[in-house]
């Protein structure tokens, strides 16, 4: 059933509007009905009172002057403007006098108040016009001692008019309510729900595979905009994770396939021909070394992915950046010296941040490793300086005076596997800076690259430590 309803009836707006309309109409109907019946009853009561006042007068007239006086009374009163209804009939119900021309049959048969309003036709003696319309009236019927029937009544015109006015009021109210319902339907349905529809349409498009699609934002800053903005931010995150995943699989395909192929070829070449055990040994050792490098690359990829997947407070504690710098610089100092690079560091005695010592240590070691690797060169006075300073948060600047990285390549340098041209001859997985960047991201900070003349400065920028304040 519901499925076969036109689409418009399935919207919340239409349902809501219909419900409101129904509810208001019901209330209005009850109100009007109640008011009308109350007023009509009150009016009827008044009429009956007027009639009751009349009866004794007529009764006395009959007692005093008999039938002729009564007839005169009735004729006289009938002619007055706005007169009551008067009727004198013989025992058989034939009309003798009064201003009633015809009556609904049966009215005269029962003495006392007519139970319900009856129909009659008025005979207007005053204007000599015959009123063709049948009216409704209430009346009191009395049988005179000589079996003649006397009826005194009152037209219900006033009550009828009241009822009509009320009914018109009800119709008007209904009209307004209908209009109101339409407005509600328009406002809620055409505008608000249309936007929800837009959101769900966009959602469907995105689910269908268009991950670059975004939800519409109207710019009014209302709750729909906020919803859309949040969903967009979520999509942005999903897209970047997805992009990362794609990149990883692409890079795995490219960068792991090459060493795997090389390894396989080497093993094959070692098997071919007759070789001594020393040669076999050498081939196997190379194979192991290459496998180790592959494992290392793999671990780095996994680690980056996990770090990018999210932050876990359990893995962090209060750590001292100054101590980490001291450790890592001390670790690299011999290597720097051997490479002919002067490694210096400057740091305040203590620099507490919330973080993971292992990860920060690893990031710093990667950055320093890179700096040493790329600044070393023959005949140059190579220098790498590590400096810890505090701005809004702590930052570690690792600057070298090597060839640097062209400004345009700064972003690419921290991408996975990117090893800028002319650095391909250097050892390493090409993941060092990407891992450092992922680690800084994990800490809510960032990795900044700025060109120095000469060289480049890689900065590990930590966020302001909120726990301290």
């Amino acid at each position, binding site marked *: 059933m519901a499925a076969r309803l036109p689409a418009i009836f399935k919207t919340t707006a239409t349902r809501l509007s219909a419900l409101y309309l129904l509810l208001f109409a019901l209330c209005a109907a009850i109100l009007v009905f109640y008011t009308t019946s109350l007023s009509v009853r009150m009016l009827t009561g008044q009429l009956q009172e007027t009639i009751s006042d009349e009866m004794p007068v007529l009764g006395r007239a009959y007692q005093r002057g008999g039938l002729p006086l009564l007839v005169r009374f009735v004729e006289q009163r009938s002619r007055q403007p706005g007169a009551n209804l008067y009727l004198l009939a013989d025992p058989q119900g034939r009309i003798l006098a009064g201003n009633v021309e015809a009556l609904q049959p049966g009215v005269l048969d029962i003495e006392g108040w007519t139970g319900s309003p009856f129909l009659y036709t008025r005979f207007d003696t005053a204007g000599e016009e015959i009123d063709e319309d049948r009216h409704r009236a209430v009346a009191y019927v009395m049988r005179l001692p000589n079996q003649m029937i006397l009826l005194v009544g009152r037209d219900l015109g006033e009550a009828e008019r009241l009822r009509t006015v009320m009914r018109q009021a009800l119709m008007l109210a209904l009209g307004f309510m209908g209009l109101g319902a339409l407005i509600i339907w328009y406002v809620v349905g055409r505008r608000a729900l249309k936007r929800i529809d837009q959101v769900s349409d966009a959602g469907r498009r995105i689910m269908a595979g268009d991950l670059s699609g975004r939800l519409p934002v109207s710019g009014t800053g209302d709750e729909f905009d906020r919803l859309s903005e949040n969903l967009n931010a979520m999509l942005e995150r999903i897209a970047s994770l997805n992009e990362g995943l794609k990149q990883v699989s692409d890079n795995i395909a490219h960068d792991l396939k090459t060493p795997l192929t090389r390894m396989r070829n080497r093993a094959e070449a070692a098997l071919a021909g007759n070789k001594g055990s020393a040669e076999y040994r050498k081939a196997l050792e190379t194979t192991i070394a290459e496998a180790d490098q592959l494992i290392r690359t793999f*671990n780095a990829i996994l680690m980056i992915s996990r770090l990018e997947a999210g932050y876990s407070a359990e893995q962090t504690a209060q750590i001292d950046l100054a101590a980490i710098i001291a450790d890592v610089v001390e*670790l690299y100092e011999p290597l720097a010296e051997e490479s002919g690079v002067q490694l210096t560091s400057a740091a305040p005695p203590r620099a507490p941040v919330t973080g993971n010592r292992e990860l920060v240590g690893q990031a710093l070691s990667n950055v320093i490793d890179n700096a040493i*690797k790329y600044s070393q060169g023959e005949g140059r006075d190579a220098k790498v300086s590590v400096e810890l300073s505090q701005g809004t948060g702590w930052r570690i600047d690792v600057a070298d005076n090597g060839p640097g990285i062209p400004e345009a390549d700064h972003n690419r340098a921290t991408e996975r596997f990117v090893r800028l041209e002319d650095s391909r001859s250097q050892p390493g997985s090409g993941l060092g800076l990407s891992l450092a960047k992922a680690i800084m991201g994990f800490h809510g900070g960032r990795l900044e690259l700025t060109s120095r003349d000469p060289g480049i400065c890689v900065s590990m920028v930590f966020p302001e430590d909120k726990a301290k304040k």
Partner: protein
Amino acid sequence: MKLLIIEDDREAADYLEKALTEAGHTAHLARDGETGYMLASDGEYDVLIVDRMLPKRDGLSVIAALRAKGIDTAVLILSALGEVDDRVTGLRAGGDDYLTKPYAFSELLARIEVLSRRKGRADIETVYRAGDLELDRLSHTVRRAGQEIVLQPREFRLLEYMMRHAGQVVTRTMLLENVWDYHFDPQTNVIDVHISRLRSKIEKGFDKPVLHTIRGAGYMLKAG
């Protein structure tokens, strides 16, 4: 050395068993946590090699149960989970060392050998000796053939660790872990440079080398 491997991956377990046997150890195999726990609960083994994810009973719960029972056999945890806090949870559960898969067998072997002598006299001794090399842990002095050698604090700790495990292979990662207290994988040959510096200090002017490079594995301090 008597070893128990608790590992459900048949191929990995068989390889380990074979390789450890070839290395001169007695290796037993348990393919699920429950069996592993039963075999290990008499405390007869020197080192347990425990995988974290096991059928019937997971590795960490096996270790915790053994520790609760008072069995203090050294445990090396093997895990495919390599996240930063996995190591911490592993060690907190009662493991003595942690190795992430995939690993080099030489790394595993070196660690097992170090673990087996974990609770030896070395911890109590104040002076380590290897041939004519002598390290005094209290006065922080190093002598070779009675001649004092001045070392930097880190070099001293490096030598101290090497001497404590004299005759055993120590890998680069083990050195980084125990001397520098960092668990990441050094990308380049940083450790090698430290070793060669130390070597030049303790071997210069002496005939016999004491610090040997073990190809494909690491280093070994051995006199004579």
